[in-house]
């Protein structure tokens, strides 16, 4: 994906925030559910179609403690996982 790509959640997916800031992503179309840790929840909430991955990493650095140097690579992998599971996609790019 180009650096300008902006991830966006699948609108059929429900974020169920549970206790201790953990959450479940529930895909109502398939019935599948995926656990998210608090950082995953933070990232999910940033997938609004207005932020690039780099911008989300910046948000992470501002709002989370102990963000490692390689965070951007981890985030790209995480978002790629979400895309492959059908939980997220990318906002259509305008030419």
């Amino acid at each position: 994906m180009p650096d300008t790509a902006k991830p966006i959640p699948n609108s059929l997916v429900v974020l169920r925030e549970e206790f201790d800031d953990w959450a479940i992503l529930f895909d109502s179309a398939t019935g599948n559910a995926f656990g998210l840790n608090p950082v995953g929840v933070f990232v999910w909430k940033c997938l609004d179609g207005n932020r690039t991955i780099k911008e989300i990493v910046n948000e992470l650095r501002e709002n989370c403690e102990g963000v490692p140097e390689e965070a951007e690579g981890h985030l790209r992998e995480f978002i790629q996982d979400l895309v492959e599971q059908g939980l997220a996609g990318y906002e259509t790019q305008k030419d």
Partner: protein
Amino acid sequence: MRPKRINAAVNLMNTPRSVDLAITNQCNLRCTYCSHFTSAGDVGQDLPTEEWLRFFEELNRCAVMDAILQGAEPFCREDLKQLIQGIVRNRMRFNILSNGTLITDEMASFLASTYRCDGVQISIDGSTPKIHDACRGKGNFVRAMKGIKILRRHGLPVSVRVTIHKHNLKDLEDIARLLLEEVGLPSFSTNSASFMGLCRYNAEEVQLSPEDRFLAMETLLRLHRKYNSRINAEAGPLAEAETWLEMEKARQERRERMPGRGCLTGCGGPMSKLAVRADGVIVPCIQMSHIELGRINRDDLHEVWENHPELKRLRERRNIPLSDFEFCKGCDYIPYCTGNCPALAYTILGEENHPSPDACLRKFLEEGGRLPDENAK
């Protein structure tokens, strides 16, 4: 890494994960052991379509995942398709609990087309019309079996619930053969006629005696093994057999306790579920419809879930030791017992925060009951 602000840890979900919805008070049958009619859930009225649809939007905002549609009989509602469309629109999946007699090809086709139906549970109580219809009314075995056939033809997940009572006690082997071999279901579940609703007035005719319960436990354990665990139960004789044998073994081994036992821990429902009666009143469970927590579209569901004192009382029952109860005094099984279902404790004693006498192993044995041999062929 972790976010800088973490919410205070509260060991409770933010909102219920699933909801039981009694979408109608109507039913085309009057089964003699029905838990609905004459109970507090028998409210004599249904909500208009719009009220349910508005509530589904709140369920969406609360990120509720599953709706279990029940009644009385859900297929009696003429607007059922509209309601289901509302559920789908609001990102939930659904199950339906039904007597199976009103299912049409057109309805099954619709259910399948939603791709959100996790299952339709049909009640089958016998392997023949005579046995099934003894409590459910003439002609309903044929109708229910036809309903199952239609649902399966459309590729819908069908489950069957067998309620065990005096009329089908000796038919369990044939029921298992019918459902697992002839119909080819992957599994079915069992319970037994409980002292709720109409069953309270027909208890002598339908409820199992201690000797009946022994026979049912023995037969179901044998069938459970024969069919490689394709028969399951969360209540009734099979569940009791498994639990009671485990408790007796723990007693004989003089184990100090079993994890999660010794207090009123028998029901985890209020930690993950809520229910709504056909008149829109929010209750903790359909079987505890007498505890009114609020009304849909008037009271905030999240607020009810987190703060209603009655829900807190039910959640805290797990901290009440069984040794506090006069009923349990001197019982060797206390460290291994959960007190079982609060709804049944209520219908028998008028008190939810009490062990259910119906599930008491000591009482069962004192009344002449026997435990089956775990290894009997």
